[in-house]
């Protein structure tokens, strides 16, 4: 589909969905009336800029069914997000929604190269979480044999992977690494299994993790992105190029905004990802702020698909630091630290303000295995420090002072925000 045809379709669907929520969701009707916007003001996809944003807080405030647009009799499934604080987010799906979801998930699997001849294990959690059932319906839709393995009981799962000749798996990237570890423990080699495709998502991961998973499990690993507020897994997917994830943009319209000014950003720039559901009946959302940070890749993909691609998730806007006016995300530091084997995958950002100038210090731990006899002079250690500093500078666009720490001296963090100490008193 050409860009013009896609934009025309998106514009038509956007008008319909705005009209639909205006008449069925009091929350949106009130918001639109406050802003003096009528559904007829929204005719093209560019008009989306006139619409209000929706936040996670809006979903919580309207718990449980406040944002549901379809009558309960039309809802055939309800999922709930794993909210750790306050109310969970409740999302209801109509029969048509489940159909669209299965179709989008089938697109993802097809892009990964999965066919009806595959035996595919769904190892996301089944239940309130959208991962398990979402992937399950997609696998059934393309006609492959689905193994609803779920999570847990890894040894039995590995037995099935080997004995049934399972060829594909959908799980979190960290579970994939856990599978590899368990294989080592049980003495199962990658030659003993037939896995060839992995659909990995539900948590951020890096290219280094991809390399490791692909090497250890002997498969090709693809990103699978989704969030329950929009649909679940299937919102975007990588193709054979493994370079950016194609968005199912005929159903989920993506925008990138500056999380501070809320202004849309041009293609290629990193900012907060925002989605509008163009066809959803159960719980449509307008301009939902995902808090995920990424960019939309300019240009077309070598695979031939015209659907826009999004980059890897580079961080969360909740974690964003502004240092000397530059947006800095702890995950950017993480990717650099992970790329250098000399350092343990632990780090700490210390932000301060000295003489009215912001300073950034990055603490990293030396890894014992890589501290070799060559490090018997400060010159050798300084060189390592400088290599890290220059990598950080090129990724962050600002200079960071590196402080090396002895092994196991940085506390293991419980969450992302625990990677940052901001001493600035603003």
């Amino acid at each position, binding site marked *: 589909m050409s860009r013009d045809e896609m934009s025309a379709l998106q514009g038509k669907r956007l008008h319909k969905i705005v009209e639909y929520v205006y008449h069925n969701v009091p929350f949106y009707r009130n918001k639109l009336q406050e802003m003096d916007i009528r559904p007829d003001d929204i005719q093209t996809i560019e008009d989306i800029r006139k619409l209000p944003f929706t936040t996670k807080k809006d979903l919580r405030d309207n718990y449980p069914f406040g944002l549901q647009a379809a009558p309960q009799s039309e809802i055939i499934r309800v999922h709930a997000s794993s909210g750790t604080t306050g109310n969970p987010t409740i999302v209801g799906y109509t029969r048509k929604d489940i159909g669209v979801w299965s179709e989008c998930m089938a697109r993802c699997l097809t892009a990964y190269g999965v066919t009806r001849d595959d035996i595919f294990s769904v190892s996301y959690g089944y239940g309130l979480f959208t991962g398990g059932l979402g992937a399950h319906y997609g696998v059934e839709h393309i006609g492959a044999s689905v193994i609803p393995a779920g999570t847990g009981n890894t040894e039995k799962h590995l037995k099935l992977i080997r004995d049934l000749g399972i060829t594909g798996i959908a799980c979190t990237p960290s579970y994939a690494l856990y599978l590899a570890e368990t294989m080592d423990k049980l003495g199962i080699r990658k030659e003993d299994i037939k896995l060839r495709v992995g659909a990995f998502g539900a948590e951020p991961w890096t290219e280094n993790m991809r390399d490791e998973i692909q090497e250890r499990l002997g498969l090709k690993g693809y990103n699978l992105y989704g969030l329950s507020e929009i649909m679940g897994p299937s919102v975007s997917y990588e193709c054979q190029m493994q370079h950016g994830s194609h968005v199912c943009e005929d159903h989920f319209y993506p925008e990138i905004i500056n999380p501070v000014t809320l202004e849309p950003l041009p293609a290629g720039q990193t900012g907060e990802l925002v989605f509008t559901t163009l066809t959803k009946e159960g719980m449509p959302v307008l301009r939902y702020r995902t808090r995920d940070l990424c960019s939309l890749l300019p240009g077309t993909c070598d695979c031939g698909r015209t659907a826009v691609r999004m980059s890897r998730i580079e961080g969360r806007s909740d974690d964003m630091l502004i240092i000397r006016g530059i947006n800095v995300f702890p995950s950017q530091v993480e990717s650099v630290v992970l790329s250098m084997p000399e350092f343990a995958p632990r780090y700490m950002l210390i932000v301060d303000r000295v003489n009215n100038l912001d300073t950034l210090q990055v603490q990293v731990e030396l890894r014992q295995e890589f*501290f070799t006899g060559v*490090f018997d002079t*400060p010159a050798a250690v300084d060189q390592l420090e400088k290599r890290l500093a220059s990598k950080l500078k090129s990724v962050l666009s600002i200079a960071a002072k590196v402080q090396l720490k002895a092994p196991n001296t940085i506390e293991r963090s419980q969450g992302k925000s625990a990677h940052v100490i901001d001493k600035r008193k603003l």
Partner: protein
Amino acid sequence: MTIHQLSIFIENRSGTLIKVLNALKEANIQIIASTIADTAEYGIYRLICSSPMRACEELKAANVAVALSDVFAIEIDDKPGRAADAVKSFSEAGISITYMYSFLLRGKGILIFRTDNNELAKQVIARDGLKSVSEEDLAALA
């Protein structure tokens, strides 16, 4: 012809040196000579000790960033000019000495140093009849 030196990364804050020394003490390791190359933020603690391999394993177990480096130990008479004589041999052969420290042991001077060309340094030691000290000799002397 070379001996093992422990090279230890130590952060500049109180409690880090004692952690290393305590681990050596508990392992009953005897320190023969040591020096710290210090910078503003950290130091490289260089150490000649009894049972360096075991000392290294013990320190690793105590979460210390430690490695074994190959250094030379040359015995010289405790008289003026002997250090100059020894270093002259290497200098004339075009060998750079990366770092050096020395100590007295039972009336003899011991020079510990690392070079940028260990193979050539070994030839020079053999050619000029310099007295290289082995790990066993050092442990026995200590």
